[in-house]
């Protein structure tokens, strides 16, 4: 009852209500951001430590169980955050019919890169 009173006459006539999940993307953008702070800092420090390491040392590092897990988490968080961020950018600047194609293409690329990266880590860890 209270809800109906808060609706504008036009909103009631068009039958448009809240989608109920509008906050979800905004919130997940923040959650992934907070998760990425320690993950990216860890990765940066690791890269600095391993800068003069040779190939076998890098592979041995990636095969460490904790490193494998953290790298997979980094890729999930990174590409989730990337997809949400690029979505906002596309929604702000791309209009008309190209918006859908841009959003779909961007999500496809982000998802593919995340899968490719995770598979590369898992193959390094478990194969060969």
């Amino acid at each position, binding site marked *: 009852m209270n809800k109906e009173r808060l609706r504008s006459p036009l909103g009631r006539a068009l039958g448009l209500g809240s989608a109920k999940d509008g906050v979800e993307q905004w919130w997940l953008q*923040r959650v992934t*951001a*907070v998760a990425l*702070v320690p993950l*990216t800092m860890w990765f*940066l420090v690791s*890269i*600095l*430590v391993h*800068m*003069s390491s040779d*190939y*076998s040392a*890098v*592979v041995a590092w*990636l095969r460490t169980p904790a490193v494998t897990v953290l*790298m997979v988490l980094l*890729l999930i968080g*990174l*590409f989730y955050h*990337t997809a949400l*961020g*690029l979505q906002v*950018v596309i929604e702000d600047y791309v209009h008309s019919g190209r918006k859908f194609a841009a959003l779909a293409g961007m999500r496809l690329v982000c998802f593919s*890169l995340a899968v*490719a*990266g995770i598979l*590369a*880590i898992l*193959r*390094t860890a478990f194969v060969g």
Partner: protein
Amino acid sequence: MASSATKRTRPQSPNIQIYRPQLTSVLSIANRISGVLLSIYAVGLVAWLSAVVAGPQVYSTALVFIRSWVGQILLLGCTFSFFLHLCGGIRHLIWDAGYGFELRTIYASGWTVVAAASALTAIVWITGAASSGQGP
């Protein structure tokens, strides 16, 4: 949008170009631009991991590119974009928590982001140069 037969021109707000750039607006768009740049650098991260899987020969070719001057400039851009986006993002999270909206605080936090991103980039590259004899 439903358009009637007679399309009336709606009033428009002034375009962004007529405003003088200020720290607040520059940092706002810088956070967005650095985010888009980091999305492109994320492709490089996956390429690097793929080079590890491909084996030592492909990996050493990748290292040759990374250590070339083009690769080093790209990495420097990546480092600065990362720290700018990180510091700017933390500033946004503080705003989201409801703090720091006074004009003085906004300028103070803005200059802190610029200084911190520059200093952290310098620290990483000086550390990298010291530990390898050349850039990271």
